[in-house]
Each structure stands twice: as C-alpha cells, then as structure tokens.
C-alpha cells in the first residue's frame, strides 16, 4: 500500500507543478509583458484559468497531507530546517491567492487594481522561486541535523547557489508552461503571435536557468550531473524531453494547441521524473550523508493503509469532477441562456 501512497504523492507534486505552475506562470508572464499589452494578456489568461485556479492549488494540500500523515519524520525535518523558505513560500501563497480574488471581486475598479496586480505578479514570481529552493535544498545535502548555530542550521540549510538556481529554473518552467497553455486560449492572430514570442523566450529562460543549475551544482560539488545522466532511465527521460522540445519548436506556429500542451506537460513530467527517480525512495538527503527514505520512514501499516484508501476513494470523486470542470470551460460558446 505504501507504493500507492507514494504514487499519489508523486502525482500530486507533478500536478501541482504542471497546473499550479501554469497558474503561477500566468502571473510571471504578466510581469514580463509590456504595459500596453498587459490587459489583453490578462483577459486571455484568466478566461481559461479563472474556473480551475482554486482547484490547481489543492494539489499542494494533498501532497502536504500525504507527507504529514504517512511520512511524519520527513515532514517535520523539512519543516524545522527549511522553516524560512517555507514561510517565504507561504507568504507568497497568501498574497497571490488573495490578490487574485480581490482583483476579480473588487466592486469598484479603481487604482486599487494596480496594487492587487503588482502584489499578484510579484508573488507569482516569489512563490515558485521558493518552491524550487525548498525542493533543491531537500536533495542537495545541505540540511545539517548536527548544526548548533542558527546560520548553519536554519539558513545555510537552503541558501546556496544551487538552491537559488533551481528556484530560478522553477520560475522559468512556470512561465514556459503558462505561455504554452495560453497560446491555445487566444482568439486572434495578434495575441497568438504575442504568446508564441513569450513561449519562445521562456524556452531560452528555461535553458539558461538549467545551465545555471548545472554550473552551481558543479561549483558546490553536488553530483546533479551523475544523478540525472548516470542512470539510463534519467538519460532517456532528458533526451526524450529534448527531442519533444525540438518537435515543439517546429509545431509552435501551426495552431495545434493540444499538441503543444501535451508536449510541454511531457517535458516537465520527464524533468521531474529524472530529478526524483535516482533518489527514490529517498526524498531528503542530509549533510552527514544519511538520507530520509519514504520506505524507511513510513508510518505504521494501518496509517498507510487508511491513507491509501482515503486517497483512492477521494480520487474517484475528484478526478471526474475536475475533468468535467476543465471540459465545460474549455468549450468556447455558452450553452444555456439565462431565463
């Protein structure tokens, strides 16, 4: 049963990165759109994201609940030693979630809109940045359980060039996902051209940030290269992601939004796969060389079983409803007239 729980954990993280990521990306794209185009960009983006955006963020809650119920030692270790980036991420989540709704539901559209917008776009940047830092810090062996002073226990557990560059990489992935997603939402050629430009630029940003990750890892002696390319499956994942990127580059102008989305989703899935596969079942690597394994630190059998059943039953309810929600709001024309 523990494998069912781990599969759900991985899927929840993946879906959060894909759906939540595209959602963060919408704010990031808005940030990097010149002011004259901003309101046009925004309108296109939120017609699509509006109905599903609350649901996108539920995946994070699912992941965190799985961690604290099934793998409490891992949850608490990360909570204690990565307290500061977690708080930063939470502040981003609060600011972003509320600013988005406030912007939509303020009855008076005045200067406050500018305030909501700037809170929204900057927190869209900060939240995935710290998410990336947290992910990087948990596998890079920076967490030091033996540390006695504040800085080495609670600051250098996450502050490193490697973590910062993974943060940047996460941000650019989000922007990329959003740009690809939005291409399919446009209803005129000018908008489409705008977002295709954005998408192409974000590909460069992803590559640049990816290169930074390897450089930072090399200089801080984190064997990322070996983790990803030292294993045939990792190698396969990354090379198929690269091939699909090439395919995408040549189909991006061809008005095939579903293909683009599938390719982008595939690439990000492969990156997450390559990044997690070599460590499995370890999820946190500590400074002293020990690791926290999902298998060794799982809860008692009854806990894991009931968690697995709760997740299975939950997904029977959630998945059809979610797909129907996405389906209904992907259709462009209204179906029912108000009477």
């Amino acid at each position, binding site marked *: 049963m523990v494998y069912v729980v781990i599969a759900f954990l991985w899927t929840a993280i993946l879906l959060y990165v894909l759906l939540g990521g595209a959602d963060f990306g919408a704010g990031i794209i808005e940030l990097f759109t010149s002011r004259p185009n901003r309101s046009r960009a925004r309108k296109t983006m939120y017609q699509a994201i509006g109905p599903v955006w609350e649901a996108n963020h539920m995946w994070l809650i699912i992941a965190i609940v799985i961690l*604290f119920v099934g793998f409490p030692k891992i949850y*608490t270790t990360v*909570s204690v030693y990565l307290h500061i980036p977690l708080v930063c991420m*939470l502040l981003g989540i609060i600011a972003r*979630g509320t600013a988005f709704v406030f912007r939509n539901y303020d009855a008076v559209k005045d200067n406050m809109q500018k305030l909501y917008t700037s809170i929204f776009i900057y927190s869209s940047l900060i939240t995935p940045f710290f998410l990336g830092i947290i992910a990087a810090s948990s596998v890079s062996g920076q967490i030091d359980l033996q540390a006695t002073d504040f800085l080495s*226990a609670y600051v250098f557990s996450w502050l490193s060039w490697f973590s910062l560059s993974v943060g940047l990489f996460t941000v650019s992935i989000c922007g990329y996902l959003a740009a690809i997603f939005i291409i399919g939402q446009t209803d005129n050629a000018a908008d489409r051209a705008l977002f295709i430009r954005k998408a192409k630029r974000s590909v460069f940003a992803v590559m640049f940030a990816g290169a930074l990750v390897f450089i930072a890892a090399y200089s801080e002696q984190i064997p990322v290269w070996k983790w990803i390319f030292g294993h045939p499956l990792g190698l396969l994942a990354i090379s198929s992601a690269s091939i699909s990127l090439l395919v995408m580059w040549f189909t991006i102008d061809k008005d095939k939004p579903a293909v683009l989305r599938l390719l982008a989703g595939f690439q990000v899935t492969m990156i997450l796969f390559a990044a997690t596969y070599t460590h499995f079942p370890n999820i946190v690597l500590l400074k002293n060389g020990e690791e926290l394994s999902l298998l060794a630190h799982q809860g008692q059998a009854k806990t894991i079983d*009931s*968690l697995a059943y*709760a997740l299975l039953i939950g997904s029977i309810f959630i998945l059809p409803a979610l797909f129907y929600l996405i389906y209904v709001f992907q259709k462009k024309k209204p179906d*029912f007239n108000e009477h």
Partner: protein
Amino acid sequence: MDDFLAARLQMAFSLGFHIVFACIGMVMPFFMTVAHFIWLKTGKAVYLDVTKAWSKGVAIFFATGAVSGTVLSFELGLLWPKFMEHAGPIFGMPFSLEGTAFFIEAIALGFYLYGWKRIHPWFHWATGVVVGVSGLISGILVVAANSWMNSPSGFDYVNGAYLNIDPIKAMFNEAWFSQALHMCVAAFVSTGFAVAGVHALMILRKRNVLFHSKAFKIAAVFATVAACLQPLSGDISAKDVARRQPAKLAAMEAHFHTEKNAALIIGGIPDTAAKEVKYALKIPGLLSFMAHGDFNTEVTGLDKIPVADQPPVAVTHYAFQVMVGLGMAMLGLALLYFIALWKKKQWLRGRWLLKLFVIATPLGFIALEAGWTVTEVGRQPWIINGIMRTADAVTPMPGIRYSFYLFTAVYISLSLIVTFLLYRQIAMVGRLYDSEVKPQND
C-alpha cells in the same frame, strides 16, 4: 517575547483568523443556494440579484479561507514539529478525507462562479449546494482532528511510544460529535447574524430596501433557528467535557473546590491565589445538574488537578462567560424574531427589531472566538490531552517571535482589505446587483 509564547500566539492568530473565513465560506453557500432556489422557482429578479451578490462574498471568503487553511497545514509542522511527528499518523485520517472534501468544494465553486449561462440552470444550482455541503464536511473533519487533541484515542501510549495506531478509531474519538455539532451550529449562528446585521443596517438606511429585505430574511431565519439549537448542543458539549476533561470544565467555571451540589458561577473575577471567585452570581446545584444531570453529583474542582496540569483559569473562565452570555443574547433576539414572524407582524415594520439585529452583527463571531479560546486554552498545558505538553512540541528554531510579528501584520492587513472589499460590495449593490435600479446596459 518568549519564543514558546510567540509560537502559541501565532497559532492562535492563524486559527482565529482562519475560523472566521472558514465559517463564512461554509455557511454562505447555503444562504446563496436558498436565494438561488427561490429565483429558479419564482423567477423574481430580486432573488437572482441577491444570489449574485452573495456569490461574490463566497468567492472572497473562500479564497481567503483556502489560503489561510493552506498556511495552517504548514504551520502545524513549522511551529509544532514534535507534535506532528507523533500525531500526524494518528489523527491524519480526517485531514486526508478533508483534502477530498476541500477539493470537491473548490471544483464546485469553479462551476458555480463561472457557470452562469454555461451549464444547465439546475445543475448550476446543485453545484452551489455541493459547495455548501462539502464545506460543511470539511469543517466537521477538521474539528474531528482537533477533538482528537482533546480526547486522544486510536493508539496505545507505552513508555513514550505510540503503538497500535488505528486512524479510524482516532477520527471517531469521543469528542468528535459534540465538538463538530457545536462548531457547525456556531458557524450558522455567527455567519447568519453577521449577514443579517449588515442587511438590516442597509434597510434602516433605506438603501435598495427590497433587495436587502429579501437577503435579510434568508440570513435571519438561518441565524435564529441555529441560535435556538445552540444551547442544546452546548449542553451536550458541557456534559461531554465534564466527563472527559474535568480540568477544562473546572477552569471554564472557575470551580476551585471539588464538591457536591456545586454552584454555577456566572461572571465574577477568579482569584487563583485565594481560590475563589469575587463578585460572581452563584446558583447552587446548577453546575452539578448541567455537568452530570443531577443536582447532587460531585463536580471535580481544580483542587483535584495537579498545579502543573491546570489550564489558565482566568482566560478560560472569561472566554466561557462571554460565549454563553452572547449565546443567550442571540437566543433572546431569535425568540423576539419568531414572535414577530408569527404573532406580531407589526414588529417587522418597526425599526427597533432591525436595530437589534444591527447591534448583533459581530456577536456571533465574538462568541465563536471565545468558544474557540475555551476549547484551546482550556486544554493547556497539553497539546495532546494527558499525553504531550504543548511546551514539548514547539519547534527548536529560535526567533519565532519575528515570524509571529510578520504573520500578525499579514493577517491584520488581510482583514482590513477584506473589510474594505465588503464595504465596497455593499455600497455598490445599487449599481451592480439590484435590478430595480441598476443601469440596464450592464
């Protein structure tokens, strides 16, 4: 400020903030779907206007409740890692189910808010009902987790180890029913009076009177029915606490000495050193009756509880008095409203009844926060009653006070912004929602 105190205060603020938004987010969908139902049945435009206005409120409160809830799921680990390390696997069941309920709520809300003209009218209405019902289920599940801290079960505690964990048994602990019932009814009382009070004020100011009258009536009926049920659920809770957590009951009542025919103490200033309550109204025997159903039963006093295990008496006692006092005031108003509905229709046209509802606007939420204080402070010094002390659960990271200042600032500014948004929503009713007066080109 001491880091332990800062951690407790940060948790208290976060929960105290979340509880308001969560309650409104779980109760308002019911008001909204009632208005929506009447509109679908009668076709009267004013009910559609009310539905749409309320749905904006639901969106604002749901989003704020959702982010503050997300923060809490992290704060449990950020502030109380030792607690979560042991408690997570035991009391996690309701949380994992709550994840589903919350998810369904978010999906249904997406349908509801964006579904106008897009989905079948009755399916649209049903998604509103799903928002309410799944919100209520979420609330019940979260309270079931909290009640486990008051009434730990579903494991064997042997020499500091937590063995034979049974998450289902932990979820259906002895306190879950009484606590969940009391909390849900409280959510209806507090949200109902708050919403009714705002609309009453608008009627008194003669703004969009038809719109606000319809809205007022729906909210007021929910509020007053719930206010009548709450004393009954309170009685169930009191008897349950008396049986399971005598220390908490003793602190609530500032009941220092174990005795038979114990007096119910109303008000007063507890003096912990002298072990007495000054200036209080004492009704002999009533505490014994309320706690155990018999005037002569012995009620455990604080003298039977070791000093190290006693909760803070003054805070618990005052909070309990506030909760009960306001509960009684709202019950009184509820009865007046029922008399007005059935016997004295002319009262409904007078201004004084509406004025009373305006005064009652914040009372439900004050009572709710007071009740929350009773249950949390009354459990101290334990985080898991009788098993783990709160002081042993706190994070080793120093400097939590700064995190407390930060989160306090965030919650205060969020409260201000939400108040500002609501003020604007209400001020704009005439232009945005009331189809009798709003510009037709909208």
